[in-house]
């Protein structure tokens, strides 16, 4: 079980100072544009290591008229008791630091062990219309939530690719140096692709098992490395990759970039019932497919780690028809996850009134809505397993 008991923001984005104690397992934040709904979701997403749901740079996080430093602290109830996780930047420093129960954690993995968060943002509505780098980031974040070592594999891979690109662009055809870098690319690309493949297999099984009101999607990888990994042992794929990269030097040199590697992978999502790829589906259909993926991912984390992650849903109702909205509310009520949802008006969320609190945002604060729950205890029974 993972429950947020208290969130405090100091000089973060639009908030000078805010203390929020969620009164229910599901919280709805509603208000006009620009009143700080997404800022609050972002604060929660920054509690887990990474750049949060906006992929923001540190420089963008402090409040505009503030002192330049910022802090977010969250108190959680976990299986092991209460714990406080904080993150922020000290005055005069642009390096983000973490605090775990008041002390500096040994590393960020210490924090990743305690909390997890999964989110859906309106930017993802364009995931299948825009370039493949957005889809790959989305995919890698899914992998990373279950395999924390994945981020390091990808970082090492990208460094090796960048170094090889530099050598080729400078016309420095040092055979031994290039093959050393290609060896690194091959090892890290195969490790990263294997992690992606394993995640996709588990996620597809989870989606198929939990298919309800949302169209069952099927994730596929457009990646020659992953394709080979399905039929050949990893060491053989590494050899193939090393040889191919060596043979491709003139081609990559002419193209100005490395045309093969874990950085070229694309993710596909298909509606299994109709066979329609997400890129060709309607906006509402895409949103429903994505929600199915996000919910399955949350369930996968819950079963792998023993607690459900925080579910941060920014404007999830947009583009959904009435039936899908109802289905989404039903799923959220049944899930054990602590959930924060945003929207522009409270009426959309009235079907959740018996299970959720609702807070109007504005004026740098939160204002409880009397039509929703205002209890300190959660009325939704929590399944014993979680």
């Amino acid at each position, binding site marked *: 079980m993972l429950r947020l008991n208290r969130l405090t923001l100091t000089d973060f984005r639009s908030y000078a100072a805010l203390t929020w104690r969620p009164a229910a397992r599901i919280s709805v934040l509603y208000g006009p544009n620009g009143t700080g709904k997404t800022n609050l979701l972002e604060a929660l997403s920054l509690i887990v290591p990474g750049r949060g749901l906006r992929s923001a740079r540190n420089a963008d996080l402090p409040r505009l008229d503030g002192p330049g430093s910022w802090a977010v602290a969250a108190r959680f109830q976990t299986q092991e008791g209460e714990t406080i996780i904080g993150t922020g930047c000290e005055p005069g420093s642009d390096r983000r630091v973490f605090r775990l129960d008041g002390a500096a954690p040994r590393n960020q993995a210490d924090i990743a062990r305690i909390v997890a968060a999964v989110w859906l943002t309106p930017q993802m509505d364009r995931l299948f219309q825009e370039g493949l780098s957005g889809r790959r980031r989305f995919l890698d974040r899914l992998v990373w939530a279950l*395999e924390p*070592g994945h981020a390091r594999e990808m970082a*090492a891979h990208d460094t090796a690719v*960048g*170094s090889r690109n*530099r050598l080729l662009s400078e016309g420095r055809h*040092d055979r031994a140096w290039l093959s*050393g870098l290609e060896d*690194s690319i091959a090892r890290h690309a195969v*490790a990263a692709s294997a992690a992606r493949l394993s995640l996709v297999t588990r996620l597809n099984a989870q989606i198929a098992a939990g298919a309800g009101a949302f169209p069952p999607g099927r994730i596929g990888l457009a990646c020659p490395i992953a394709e080979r990994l399905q039929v050949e042992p990893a060491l053989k794929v590494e050899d193939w990759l090393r040889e191919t990269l060596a043979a491709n030097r003139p081609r990559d040199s002419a193209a100005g970039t490395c045309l093969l590697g874990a950085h070229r992978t694309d993710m596909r999502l298909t509606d299994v019932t109709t066979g329609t790829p997400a890129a060709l589906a309607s906006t509402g259909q895409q949103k429903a497919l994505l929600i199915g993926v996000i919910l399955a991912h949350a369930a996968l984390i819950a079963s792998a780690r023993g607690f459900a992650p925080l579910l941060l849903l920014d404007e999830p109702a947009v583009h959904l028809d009435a039936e899908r909205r109802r289905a989404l509310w039903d799923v959220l009520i049944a899930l054990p996850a602590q959930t924060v949802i945003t929207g522009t008006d409270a009426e959309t969320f009235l079907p959740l009134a018996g299970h959720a609190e609702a807070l109007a945002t504005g004026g740098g604060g939160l204002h409880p809505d009397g039509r929703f729950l205002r209890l300190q205890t959660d009325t939704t029974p929590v399944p014993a397993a979680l």
Partner: protein
Amino acid sequence: MGGPEVEHLIGLLSKLPGMGPRSARRAALKMLQQPESRMLPLAAALREAAEAVKPCADCGNLDSQDPCTICADEHRDRSIICVVEGVGDLWALERARVHTGLYHVLGGTLSALSGIGPEDLNIPLLLSRIAEGEVAEVILALGATVDGAATAHWLTDQIRPTGVAITRVGQGVPMGGALDVLDDGTLAAALRTRRGA
């Protein structure tokens, strides 16, 4: 505070590793309060070291004699050369007293992104030391980074034709460490490089 001399001193101190503006200020103040016992001896020691210590013409170690104490030591095994990135790595290995052979300091690693190529490293000297014929084994003790791995690969390629044995330091389970907290990459390396019990 204290005039331009003090600010200049603090500025110089704060550029040292492990020092920031605050600790530099504290160190400067401590010295200024006892110039006779702390500051002048330090100044003399700094001058002495700066004038006496030079890179060893054989291995690149920093020492007040050339060849350095290690290269000049007749008890050391001259058939093994341990190649390290920097003098700091050499000192760490000497502190641990685990290597009885000689060293060779590269002065960095190949780094395409930082513009450091083979010509910027102390490599020709290493190859000529190997060519002298006394060396039987070269240990590559380089970091497990992309640049460290590329450098090891490059050196292996250069040294292999000479026929001397080339080894690399092992990777895996740290002393006193538990397996379940290791990341997948380290675990895989530990298993790949396992040895007979």
